[in-house]
């Protein structure tokens, strides 16, 4: 009889640790706009760098501002509800969407997209996964304790995973630099 309690406790602990905890640790918030990378890539023929561009000084412009979107969507181009809502709620009142950045690094990290993409020849997918072909934006998951996006720890392919899928922690950066025999020092990223 005593073994049953022990096994039940073990199962409860494993369940809590592997299923309930990973679910509870993240706060979930939807992105402000139902945006489809796939539609923009396939129908409009756009490439990643058309919107996520590098500035003249090499710094990364990040998520495009409303001006960029309004260039095409000043008036509806299609018939989708998502586009109609976007124009009504953001373009017409000239209100910037409050995007939540899946890949936002902490304040003490200096990361150069130009160095990695232009000099290193890396593909966007190496860090950001198949974001470019997704049909909608994932719910943004923010760690309730650290405040970091879930994508920093792992790409949320599934709730329970024995193997980490992706991630943008310091260990991931160091691993990649080691694999590619690149120089690494503290001051490379922590200016």
């Amino acid at each position, binding site marked *: 009889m005593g073994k049953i309690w022990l096994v039940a*406790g073990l199962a409860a*602990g494993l369940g*809590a640790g592997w299923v309930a905890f990973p679910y509870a640790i993240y706060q979930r918030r939807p992105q402000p706009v139902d945006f489809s990378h796939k539609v923009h890539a396939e129908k409009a023929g756009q490439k990643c760098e058309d919107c996520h561009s590098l500035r003249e000084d090499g710094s990364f412009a990040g998520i495009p501002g409303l001006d960029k979107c309004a260039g095409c969507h000043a008036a509806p181009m299609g018939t989708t509800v998502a586009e109609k809502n976007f124009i009504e709620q953001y373009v017409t009142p000239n209100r910037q969407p409050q995007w939540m950045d899946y890949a936002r690094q902490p304040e003490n990290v200096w990361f150069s997209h130009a160095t990695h993409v232009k000099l290193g020849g890396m593909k966007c997918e190496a860090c950001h996964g198949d974001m470019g072909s997704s049909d909608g934006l994932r719910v943004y998951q923010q760690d309730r*304790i*650290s*405040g970091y996006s879930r994508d920093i720890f792992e790409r949320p392919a599934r709730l329970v995973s024995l193997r980490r899928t992706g991630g943008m922690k310091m260990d991931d950066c160091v691993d990649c630099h080691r694999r590619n025999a690149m120089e690494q020092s503290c001051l490379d990223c922590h200016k």
Partner: protein
Amino acid sequence: MTTTRRDLFKFAGGAAVGALLSPAPWRLITDTALWSENWPGIPRPARGEISAKFTNCTLCPAGCAVKARCVGAQPVSLAGVAGHPMSRGALCPFGIAGHHLPYHPERLRSGPVQRVAEEVARAMAARQTSEYVAVFDPRPGRTASWTYRRALHAIPGGLYIRPAAPWSGAAVNLDAARIVVSFGMPLLDGWGTPGNVVAAREHFRLIQVEAVESRTAAMADLWLPVRPGQERALAAALAGGTAEGTGIAQELVRQVAGELATNGPALVLGPADWPEIAELNRQCGAAGRTIVARRETPVPEAWQPGAAETGWSAVEDGSLRVLLIDEGAGGGDYVPWSTIERKLAPGAAVVAFTGTPEGYARHANYALPVAVYPEAVDDIPAAVDSPVAVFRLSASLVAPPEGLVSATDFVSHLAGIDAAAALRERADAICAAGRGRVFQTASGAVTALKEMKPDDFWKALSEGGCWLDEPDPKAPPPELSTGAAGFTASFAIAETRGAGLVSPLLSKLHEESHLRLGKHEVALHPSSGFRDGDRAALETGCGRILVVVRRDSSVPPGVVQAAAGADLIDLCGAAESARVVRL
């Protein structure tokens, strides 16, 4: 079925083991560590547009050009400016970490401004006719210096005091030198403008005369390990005397003297008040070749005449009723307090305008907080190795906090003069002179000043630009006169920095890596009997402080090498010898 307490314990034990076999506890450790990075009070750089701003560093007289990478309005990293005619793209470790200083935990942020103003006014009213109201300007030649001179000219009993001037009106032209003999000057370790010195280093042979193997001695072509206290004797030997007692063989001295005479143009550097240095330079014809006359940066005629420049040696003992010390401009000469103290009248009011509680703030009646680099807007006079006059501004990259005082505003208010636009007035005076050229940092372009309008010139200066005078072909060679020679101490001060804020990160890197002696550390030869880390007292005729001993075989027996700070200069700066006593 009844559930016993033992069953509950088994369940809890099983659950604990289960949890340990899951990612939860390990993730909680990581999350807690990351959470601690966001605690209140931890500085967070602003998010925003990335931009570059240009300024000039005021941490030392070199005034190197600086490019600040800013996120939003916040500078997050500093670097040199490529192509700059003087700093040549270089920036020293102090300059690279300069943007940390506004956040230094030991920085002064408040002071009794109103009480000081009343106290100074009372002291000025109580002044006897033989007493003075003085400003000590450790970094003369600035526009602020002219403001002090104007104000003190208007104040009854006003006296402007500056440190001893090496070869007044002259500068060193390292580019012209082919052989340089340096008597203890840290030529490759903070002397002059680092980028200019390193660039010129390729073209001259360096002979370092020093008792200890300093970093300059280690990088010199030849190091003459002179016996401590015999430096002047060796200089006299090079000028034709005997080398006996200096620790250097007569034959080697003869060889170096021969090099000076035949491999010129030559330059001899050393303390300005040693007549032997002036004599050596005279013998090797340095005046007009490697030591050149330099005009002063133009000043508006309306500012003339200001109070005369006075050295400490010319100030009568017990004559200062009010002494205001502008210690805010970093990198100035720190004069030992014992030299200043005897000049004060009984009950004198002494006010230090400073950003640090070290330095004169320890001795003054009051310390008032001032803006620090890169908050302060100031100009930087030409460095010792700039053959021509320059004018450049340190722009404000960080907004200064509330409650700070401006020393120039305080002094000009005492005299009732308006100096709020002094920098612009001086820029206009330079523009009116119409000579020289302007280096523009953002574009790297060099433009003749006569082609610029005053507003454009001011704009270029505000964006980190630098005006460079043209050489004066009619200027006679400078006179290498000397003042009264002092003594030579039988111990070595390793770092010549006085009081001033230094980035805590920089100190940690340099001191914990043992690249430099830490604060209150002394280095002794292993034969001294001390062990690494022994606690001891460093004693001179001026007092004692507690120190930690480091054994260093490069320090000759009988020599104490100390890392200078303001308190060590106070202790050692006016002492001929020191001793280390085991505690």
